């Protein structure tokens, strides 16, 4: 498999606060990379650095490089809009926009002044997000009428409509019931065939269930990075062991 994202000596700051220091790792095409670590260790910051969404934060600053298909995404002349379409993101809290389910799904095509996407694509992404059966008869109803779990799958589908290369997921199952969680996890495993997934999760078991490889973050550093199997069964570092066995902190 080839490397799709290559993070080299990457550090990030909010003002003077160092949120990430010297991260080096690479993400392979068509894998699910799990990112675990305690609250505040920099998981979200890392994810939002990958699509440069943190550029919106006023005093955010980075060093080092992130290569996407060999292009440094922090180069001056990178088209942020194009970059963010290639690296689609789903947030921790489901954020449906006001409007119907269909309007939500067509956000991307509206932004790009494309003709509204064909119904086939809508159906395909909704199926991929395991949502089709639940919403196929109510595409013209408000997205707010969906349950929390359905809203999050809608957000996943909305991101998939962009046809990204990489899917950035920030704790997509926090606050969801086990059934919704299982559906999303199933969806992810299916989706792996089409794209690369980076899954930030608070739920260690979730990483062990779906991730091919896992990185353990602690206080802005990568403590350990390897095959999920190895991280969970045979961790090299003491902190990793303590964290995955639930004995941390």
């Amino acid at each position, binding site marked *: 498999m080839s490397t799709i994202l290559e993070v080299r000596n990457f550090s990030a700051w909010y003002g003077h606060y160092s949120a990430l220091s010297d991260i080096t790792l690479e993400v392979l095409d068509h894998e699910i990379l799990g990112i675990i670590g305690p609250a505040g260790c920099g998981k979200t910051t890392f994810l939002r650095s990958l699509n440069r969404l943190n550029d919106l934060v006023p005093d955010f600053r980075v060093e080092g490089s992130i290569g996407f*298909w060999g*292009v440094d*995404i922090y*180069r001056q002349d990178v088209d942020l809009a194009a970059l963010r379409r290639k690296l689609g993101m789903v947030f921790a809290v489901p954020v449906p926009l006001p409007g119907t389910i269909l309007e939500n799904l067509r956000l991307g095509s509206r932004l790009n002044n494309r003709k509204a996407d064909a119904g086939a694509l809508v159906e395909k992404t909704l199926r991929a997000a395991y949502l089709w059966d639940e919403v196929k008869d109510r595409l013209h109803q408000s997205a707010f009428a969906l349950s929390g779990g359905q809203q999050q799958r809608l957000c996943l589908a909305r991101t998939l409509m962009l046809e990204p290369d990489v899917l950035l997921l920030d704790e997509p199952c926090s606050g969801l019931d086990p059934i919704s969680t299982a559906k999303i996890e199933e969806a992810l495993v299916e989706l792996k065939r089409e794209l690369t997934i980076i899954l930030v999760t608070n739920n260690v078991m979730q990483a062990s269930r779906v991730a091919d490889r896992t990185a353990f973050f602690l206080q802005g550093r990568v403590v350990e990075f390897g095959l999920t199997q190895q991280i969970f069964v045979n961790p090299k570092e003491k902190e990793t062991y303590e964290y995955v066995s639930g004995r941390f902190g």
Partner: protein
Amino acid sequence: MDRPPNERLLLKGKRRIIETLLETAVRSSAFVVIGALVLIFVFVAKEALPLFTSADVHKEVTLWTMVRPQENGEFVWQPVSEKPKYSILPLAVGTLKVTLVALLIAIPLAILAAIFTSEFAPQLLRELIKPVVELLAGIPSVVIGFFALMVVATWLQDAFGFVFRLNAITAGIGLSLAVIPIVYTVAEDALSAVPQAFRDASTALGANQWQTAWRVVLPAAMPGVFAACVLGFGRAFGETMIVLLASGNAAMMSFDPRESFRSFSATIAAELGEVVYGSPHYHVLFFIGAFLFVITFFLNLAGHWYVDRLRARLEGKLKA
């Protein structure tokens, strides 16, 4: 399946022209705002300038003759006469007189009402008072002036037997109606900005509601309350229509609030319509306008400086 590197797709292409145009428009609007304020000053000051520079104007009036006593020690504003007289002191006295009356009424009322709203009033009443003040602020000043002239003046004259039907008390009452909303709004904002934690701490120490309001909340919000007074002063100082209608428009050099008077703003409003373009009188009126601008400008700066200080103070205290 290996996808090819797509460098070309990632790098910036041409931007859409319309988008660029609209963005430029948005950005320039910021400069238009600043420009508006600058232009106001420049164009008012420009017409005032001849008062300082033109020899023709100086034959009739100079800055000095506007403030010094005229022959036989009088101070007279009589720009349209055989020998025009331009003492601005009666206008200054009139303006201060009416501003003082208005503030004496408006400030206590508005601040007490603000305390009531933010500290004592139940939610329902609060929701009622704010729209009332908004409505009051929405009454055009010409209507308030009309009301002061037609109704308040008669009532007051009947009650107190004023010699001058229109005087600084009548106009001051009308003017206070225009000042109350701004003082109330700014003061209420300041009081509500005081964190609930302050009140809780005070209550925990055994203070009751009014002690908390008086000894904790009001002192904490003081810069904001002060700002409210300063901004109210600015509003009163420049208000035109109310004073124009209810002052009696006599430029008398009298400190007695029961006598008629004339203010700076009302003088401009009353005389600019008839004045000859480019005459000394014309320039003097613009000079008064520039003066009003400068005074209110600094009052506003001061007011907002106090508001900022309040904010800094509350945030600082919260962190500590």
